[in-house]
């Protein structure tokens, strides 16, 4: 019934618009509630910027943080209001069908608002540490977030593009934010040039689609395609392909991922977390809406392309991440793997797939912002210290931080009773139901590979010395000096009785004939991985042994965790575990959001 009503409404408005266009530009009726969240975000950003430039001294960070938190909280509140409105009155398009307010858009709006709020908390500690004053960081982030919201609610390719550009341009600047690091500028330049290309390709896609269907409005494209059988569909397919390229670039799907490792590594860590969560959410939301509602008729045309993108992202993301020594780079490749997982939901092309993708985006947002918050803390002044060795023995120095990071990493790997596994479960189920069992198998196998590199960090945190230390609380852990930990670690190592005959060298992998004699891919893969682990372990042993006296002034002290950052990490970890143990609300919420998905 709603669909018919909407169809009539659409035709009347279009005829009205075409009549009116001859003499004056008619201003369509505006439903303010539908566009209030991005208006609040962008308006708040402008006000904050205005205040910051009017006051005599640079704005204190606390002021920017508090206002950003308040503004995103307000946007979140409005989104909840929108949710009740959608529940009561159903989903509708507004403002000459340019935007849509449905469960889907509201869900993503909430997601983005929460991501902004958490990122503001993380950024607070970062900005204080780096001695940056002023409101620029928060202003840019809020503008970017409003772009992501706009993408989620767009019902017109032009609005999608508008959102995409608002999102991206602010992100380019944010990437370059740490101007003291050359890497930051380099990353921004790369991101900007490649992003500019992808935007151009996307616009060209819009133009071709317009040429093929006569409209940029998603509903009208869908109507056109369902009423007409396009026989020579070269133009349409070219347009569709270019749109997909534009989206794939933003969500970092292979082979359009080239920018991701450099940008994730180069950008300031809080920005990376924000970018990973918000850019993916916005781009995936728009992608789902464009592909499902406008091009739902030609699913058979786009599905193979996305199938390929998903397989490549899953495999490349997981395997290349294995070789990374830099944690931010590793997380960048892991984000490519996650993009592959979310693409499964898109490939499925069903309501179940869309709901699974939404759930995944929400779970990923929390996991990634939390992870990059830990990375931010451990990056120390200058935000340049992200080598894996930095994480060795973290559990001894900062047990609570290590535990939170371990939970977040294991959740990304898909540990049971975290949102991570529910998310993977749902997307894999969606593709299996859609009949793509091989894709589900590929995804799960890459999850195993990914599990290895997440665990490698967890191992370093827990196994690298320091285990003998009694664990302390977050507050107390800061008092643990590095020297005592290291010395204690060395003593434990020394005291450890040497048991096996193979004690001569821990590198004696082949000592066990059965391992090396057994053929099979798994065994081979395991032994190569093992050598790596052993090397690390050996290096670890020598390092700890040598560190007893030489490194009295060891820089590996406990990093102070700013209060707001620890709140953010706590929220991310807590929610990840809470909805993992008690999954019903979030699963139902994501499902509900997709049921109210317009236009269909």
């Amino acid at each position: 019934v709603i669909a018919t009503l909407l169809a009539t409404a659409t035709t009347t408005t279009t005829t009205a618009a075409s009549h009116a266009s001859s003499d004056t530009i008619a201003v369509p009726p505006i439903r303010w509630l539908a566009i209030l969240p991005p208006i609040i975000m962008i308006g708040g950003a402008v006000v904050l910027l205005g205040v910051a430039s009017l006051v005599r001294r640079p704005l204190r960070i606390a002021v920017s943080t508090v206002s950003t938190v308040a503004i995103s909280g307000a946007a979140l509140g409005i989104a909840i209001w929108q949710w009740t409105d959608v529940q009561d009155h159903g989903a509708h398009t507004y403002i000459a069908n340019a935007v849509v307010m449905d469960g889907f858009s509201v869900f993503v709006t909430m997601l983005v608002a929460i991501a902004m709020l958490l990122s503001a908390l993380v950024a607070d500690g970062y900005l204080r540490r780096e001695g940056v004053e002023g409101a620029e960081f928060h202003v840019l982030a809020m503008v970017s977030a409003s772009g992501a919201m706009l993408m989620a609610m767009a019902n017109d390719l032009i609005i999608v593009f508008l959102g995409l550009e608002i999102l991206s341009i602010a992100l380019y600047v944010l990437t370059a934010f740490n101007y003291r690091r050359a890497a930051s500028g380099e990353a921004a330049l790369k991101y900007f040039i490649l992003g500019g290309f992808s935007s151009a390709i996307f616009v060209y896609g819009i133009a071709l689609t317009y040429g093929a269907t006569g409209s940029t409005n998603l509903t009208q494209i869908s109507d056109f395609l369902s009423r007409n059988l396009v026989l020579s569909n070269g133009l349409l397919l070219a347009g569709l392909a270019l749109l997909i390229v534009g989206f794939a670039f933003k969500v970092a799907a292979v082979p359009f991922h080239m920018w991701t490792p450099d940008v994730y590594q180069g950008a300031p860590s809080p920005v990376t977390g924000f970018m990973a969560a918000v850019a993916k959410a916005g781009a995936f939301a728009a992608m789902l809406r464009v592909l499902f509602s406008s091009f739902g008729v030609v699913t058979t045309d786009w599905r193979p392309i996305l199938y390929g993108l998903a397989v490549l992202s899953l495999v490349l993301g997981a395997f290349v991440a294995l070789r990374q020594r830099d944690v931010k780079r590793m997380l960048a490749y892991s984000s490519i793997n996650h993009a592959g997982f979310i693409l499964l939901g898109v490939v499925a092309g069903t309501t179940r797939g869309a709901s699974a993708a939404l759930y995944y985006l929400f779970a990923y947002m929390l996991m990634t912002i939390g992870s990059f918050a830990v990375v931010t803390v451990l990056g120390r002044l200058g935000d340049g210290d992200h080598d894996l060795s930095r994480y060795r023995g973290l559990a001894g120095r900062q047990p609570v931080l290590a535990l939170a990071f371990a939970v977040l990493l294991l959740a990304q790997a898909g540990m049971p009773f975290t949102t991570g596994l529910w998310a993977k479960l749902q997307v894999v189920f969606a593709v299996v139901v859609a009949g793509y069992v091989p894709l589900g198998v590929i995804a799960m196998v890459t999850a195993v590979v990914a599990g290895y590199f997440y665990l490698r960090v967890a191992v370093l945190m827990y196994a690298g010395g320091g285990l003998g230390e009694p664990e302390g609380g977050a507050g107390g852990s800061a008092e643990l000096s590095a020297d005592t930990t290291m010395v204690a670690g060395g003593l434990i190592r020394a005291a450890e009785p040497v048991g096996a005959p193979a004690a001569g060298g821990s590198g004696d992998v082949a000592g066990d004939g059965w391992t090396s004699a057994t053929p099979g891919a798994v065994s081979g893969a395991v032994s190569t991985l093992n050598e790596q682990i052993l090397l690390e372990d050996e290096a670890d042993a020598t390092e700890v042994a040598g560190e007893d006296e030489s490194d009295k002034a060891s820089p590996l002290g406990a990093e102070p965790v700013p209060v707001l950052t620890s709140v953010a990490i706590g929220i991310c970890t807590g929610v990840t575990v809470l909805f993992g143990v008690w999954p019903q609300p979030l699963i139902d919420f994501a499902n509900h959001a997709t049921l109210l998905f317009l236009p269909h």
Partner: protein
Amino acid sequence: MVHHSVPFLTLIVLIPAAGAGILGLLGLDRRLPREVPYAVALVASLATLGFAIAATVAMRVNDGGFQLVSNHDYTGTTLGVRWYLGVDGISIFLVLMTAILFPLAIILGRHRQNARVYLAWILLLEAAVMGSFVSLDLIVFFFMFELTLVPAYFIIAGWGHQRRAYAAIKFFLYTFLGSAFLLVGILALAFIHESQFGYLTFSLGDLMRTHLSSSTEILLFLAFTAAFAVKAPLFPLHTWSPDAYTEAPEEGSVLLAGVLAKIGTYGIIRFDLTLFPQATRTLAPLFLTLAVIGIIYGAIVACAQRDMKRLVAYSSLAQIGFIALGTIAISTQGLAGGVLLMVNHGLIVAALFILIGFLYQRRGTWQTGEMRGLQKAAPVLAGVFTVAMLASIGVPGLNGFVSEFLVLSGTFITHRWWAVVAVVGVIVAAVYLLWAYQQVFHGAPREADTKTHDLALLERCIMAPLIILIVFLGVYPKPVLDRINPSVQQLVAHVESSTGHAQPPVATKGVEGIK
């Protein structure tokens, strides 16, 4: 199915989990006395044991179906996952065995470095293992099955021996890879069920009714069995196990070999036989052959070991082969024997690993060549070791014999030649265990050997329940078999009705059936 006022099974899963959570929170108090975490862990595991015993008592004896069921909505109708727990004669004794072994492991592990974290991992492992044994919803089972990996991994990687990092990662990757296939298999099965019945569920009882084409059934069977065969481990997917068992701390080995391995064989019985009876029968020759190879290969390799932990690890491989043999042969005796052997092997291998741990504490080694004539200095240790070893060989009067006999006679009825070959494994088992015993406890003691002191009182108390159970189950297995048999008969009847292929009458009627 009978609903009960006390949610025994939920408590059995949640008490250890809560204990682990409390131990985690205790870390916030930095001046905590060392005894507190130990007390918390012990109380939690003993409470679990209490509820496990209560559950066993509360069960009705002649009922083969699921009892003490608790069935609640978990993820809502969107995903259809239910918190669906229940036990029958097959799982209750695994629950009981798990509940007995964990307190022992906690007592043994109380002096480890950073004991609070160590005990927290052990309790989390207990919760996950219990959850695996009682879940009747496939997704909840999968979650529990996967969850066992995390604490087991950290126990090996954090508190293991020399090559712990290698062993831990190998263990993790093998098992994780297996379960990746399991997950896809579960989802595919649920989808097929949904397309046939119009509603989404992961409950075992509903999924049983799914109609599967034979090729689909075989693919799903292989996907499920991949996970279980790695976990068990069955030959040729066992290569992680000697490393993991050897490098793990002693309590870790006890739990890995005694309890965790049983999740794999339990999975074969509970899910493969129930859901894919036809495929099990079709592929039985293949899997029986693998089981027999495992038995012979494990025994021969064990003969070549000079390292007692590796020796027990390979003997474990052979024993798991026996369990698989009895399970896949699908006869009433074989299956009952397989279930009983799971419990018995858990007790025996736990006793052996604990004793090896005692030797290691005294001598800092578990190489057979470095000890000689210990029975002079440590007669009680030697005596206890003898009992455990003889039980493992399968000497009549001890528990190993009962189950091995049932397995072999059951297999003989349905798959004669595999049973004939497997008997060789029993003989070789006597060879390697007696050799190892001879080297360590017989002969003229050297100086270090004479200084080896005997079992202390606490150590005797730890061994006592195991030895009592080993002897009791060897002499009088009837109470256990009485509870196992109805469930086993029900399962065999299900397999027979689904495959249309009955076991020979001798299996059910004894000598009468031959006439």
